[in-house]
């Protein structure tokens, strides 16, 4: 398992919630979408994907149904619950606040060096 970049603690849950928020989706598709969207900058090891999904499901943030895929196979589709949507919103907001603050500090330090 080579990581291109470490995923900051706790962000995996946020990413998963976001991906699932786009519509019901099964585990393999989530893995692929994460890979595409993050353009290979961060790699989520597939092994840690499922425990994270199950944890979110047990916390009631995700729900799951067994449905047929377009190829006619049965797969477990995850979807966002109301609770999950609320969680996504708070976490996304706090993430944005955090990144803005971090960016601000980084700029300050450059200014200070000049």
């Amino acid at each position: 398992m080579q990581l291109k970049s470490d995923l900051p603690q706790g962000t995996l849950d946020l990413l998963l919630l976001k991906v699932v928020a786009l519509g019901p989706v099964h585990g393999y598709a989530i893995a692929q979408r994460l890979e595409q969207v993050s353009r290979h900058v961060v790699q989520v090891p597939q092994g840690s994907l499922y425990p994270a999904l199950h944890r979110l499901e047990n916390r009631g943030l995700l729900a799951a149904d067994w449905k047929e895929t377009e190829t006619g196979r049965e797969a477990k589709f995850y979807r966002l619950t109301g609770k999950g949507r609320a969680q996504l919103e708070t976490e996304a907001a706090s993430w944005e606040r955090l990144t803005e603050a971090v960016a601000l500090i980084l700029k300050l330090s450059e200014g200070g060096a000049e």
Partner: protein
Amino acid sequence: MNWWQRLLGRGKMEEQLDKEMRFHLEQHANELMASGVSAAEARRRARMALGGPEQVKEECRDARGTRWVEDFWQDLRYAMRMLRQRPGFAAVAILTLALGVGASTVMFTVVNGVLLRPLPYPEPDRLVAVHGHSDNWKAELFGEQNVAYPDFLDCQRESHSLMLAGSLFNGGTISGSGVPEYVDLQQITSNLFSVLRVNLAQGRAFLPEEDRTGAAPVMILGYSFWQRRFAGRLDAVGASLSLDDKRYTVVGIAPSGFRLRDSEPDVMTPLGQDTAKFLQSRGSHPIGVVARLQPSTTLAEAQAELNLIGRHLAEQYKDTNADRTFVARPLRPDVGRIGSTLWLLLGAVGLVLLIACTNVASLLLARAISRERELAMRVALGASRGRLVRQCLTESTVLGISGGVFGVGLAAFGIRPFVALWPGALPRVEEVQLDWRVLLFVLIVSLLSGFLFGLAPALRAPVQKLEQVLRGGGRGVAGSSRRLHSCFVVSELALAVVLLVSAGLLGRTLLHLSSLNPGINIRNVLVARMALSPATLADPAKTRTAWKEVLERARRIPGVQSIATVDTFPMREGDNEQGYWTSADMPPTNELPFALLTSVSADYLKVMGIPLRRGRFFDDHDSLDTTPVIVIDEVLAQNAFGKQDPIGKRLWIPEMGYGSNMFEIVGIVGHVRHWGLAGDDQAKIRAQIYYPFSQLPDSFMHRWSQLMSIAVRTEIPPLGEVASLRSELKGSAGDQVLYEVRTMEQLVKDSLALQRFLLLLFGIFAGLALVLACIGIYGVLAYLTGQRVPEIGIRMALGARPNSVIWLVLRQSLGMILAGVAVGTAAALAAGHVLHQLVEGMQPTAPSTFLLTIPVLTAAALFASFLPARRASRVDPVIALRQD
């Protein structure tokens, strides 16, 4: 899905998990194949990307949050399997624990029932007892002081924070239909049942208007009396009964188990109907008072109010109430001094339980060491240390709980016989039963003991030197376990020493006490309380004649040597204590020395066989018209007069109430152990004064006659005279009754009953401890020697003789035994101190006790270690060296 669904729907979840993983892998492989990768290679890459489906599944299972339950279940089944595989080990361990837990449970059940359970009334914490308090009253000598009836009435009327109810203990003769019977009577206020919130079993409580002089006589029956006299018939309510020649109508039946001051009254009458003079006086304090706090008032508020009432009364009635106050305290069951005995026994039984735990711990440890390889294998396969500790603790907890279950079983069967064995009456005995508190106790004890003896083996779970353990098969790493094992043996022996020495001390004490001279000749003496015919009690002259007649009639019975009347007799059957002084110039009452006063008839000395030291005893010349006289015992003579001759001197007894409270001493008699063989030496009041019944003025006749007993010296075994005494003394109306008939021999024996009972129990505990400790030392040595078989084989191959091998093993055990005895001796000295504090008449710890008991223990322990030693000496070197 919630937690419970996840826990219970495990099978379905596993299936779905598997399906999800498979879907992922196949999907990935399909895509790879679509891009031209070969099928085998595609599957390989897909698996690589996912990173081992089993590990992923394992992590998903962790995410469910039900893991610990599943692990616990697994450990539990494993523990059961291990126990089933070794039924012998399991049986010994569980039996040992069951004995320990069972014995502790029995003791705790008694402690719980007698000391811990609240009073059996609704909202018992709102009930208080109200006592009188004055500086003259020595509560530490006489117990709490009761309240004068007029004072009680004032408090009851004026208090807004308390509902007060009172009761007065009395007695009387029930006559009329059936055999006349002397009964316990409680005179109660009409609100007593409502204050306690007790509902009557039948009928009604007294009405306020019945609680007055001149109201129609009514009566409530105690449940047992109702069952006895009326066989539980419902028409008892409304029936009419004659108590001391006065007809009463029964209006109600108290519920079963209803008690006042820890005794069930036979009958109850309204207190307010009694016209006795002492009830009108503020100077005598006979009323026991209970009260219930009014809603939303506190004890402190009630106390403040009582203080105020007390102060008002003190101003109003300076003669009687000058320094008198009233004290409210939470109402507690009256269990006397039994508490310390119970805690002592619970402590002793706790020691037995500790020994049992230690025993099982050493058994488990030995087994843990032989399982070291298995545990090392588990660690090698990825089990964490915490997981192994949990598994070991689960095993010991299973043992602990099974021991507890069997223990509760033992206790359930054992509790009734144990209570029946208790000497005398165990207070609150009806409360002694298995309840939730007891079950909680057992649960805690079982879990705790399981934890205690499981911890040592669990913490030994190997994590370091894995490789060594796996290769060496446990040999050569026994060093630390040997130390731990020795620790167990040492503490077991130490505990056993404590119990053995305590039993020895009790035995010595009992021997010493039994050899004491009670001060009377106890052979062939019968004592019984006696109630005269109620008709005679009304008239003092008739009462005097009636008592004379009793003495004369009894004297004529064949086999009766002598007879006397007496109000309180030895072995603490009642007592009357008063202050005295040797001159009229007296210090304040509370600084006076006290003595026991006994009113007797002329032949008392002859009946009891008390030696006359000097002067004379009473005779028929001592009458109302002659100088009031008394006879004192040696102790008072010594205390008050030292070397002077007391004969002809005078004593002033301020509370006596006749003869100007001044008495001439006419004789000195031997001291009698009034407080029992055990209690007399430490008793606070030992000095004794006898005064003649014949000199008591008329006003005393009624009260004294109610308290009177007869003592009879017989030529034949005294119980053989009971029938003829009863028939000869029943009086012309046939309503004079003898009750509480006993022999002095019984009473003396009973005065040591508690000591004897403690000795019996400590003997049993000590025996149990000895056996358990020997089993423990045997088990440990057998195990340790077993570990050393290869070493012994080498020694023997090199020429060691069997005797030196035996010595090798015995030396090891001797070290442990000596350490155990040393620790135990120190602890036993402390235990002896505790016993001295708690048991009456306890002899101080003497070296002889240690010299007698410790060799017994050492011999038993050596014997237990000799068996493994001999086995070791018979090791065949060839076989031993070939082992592993």
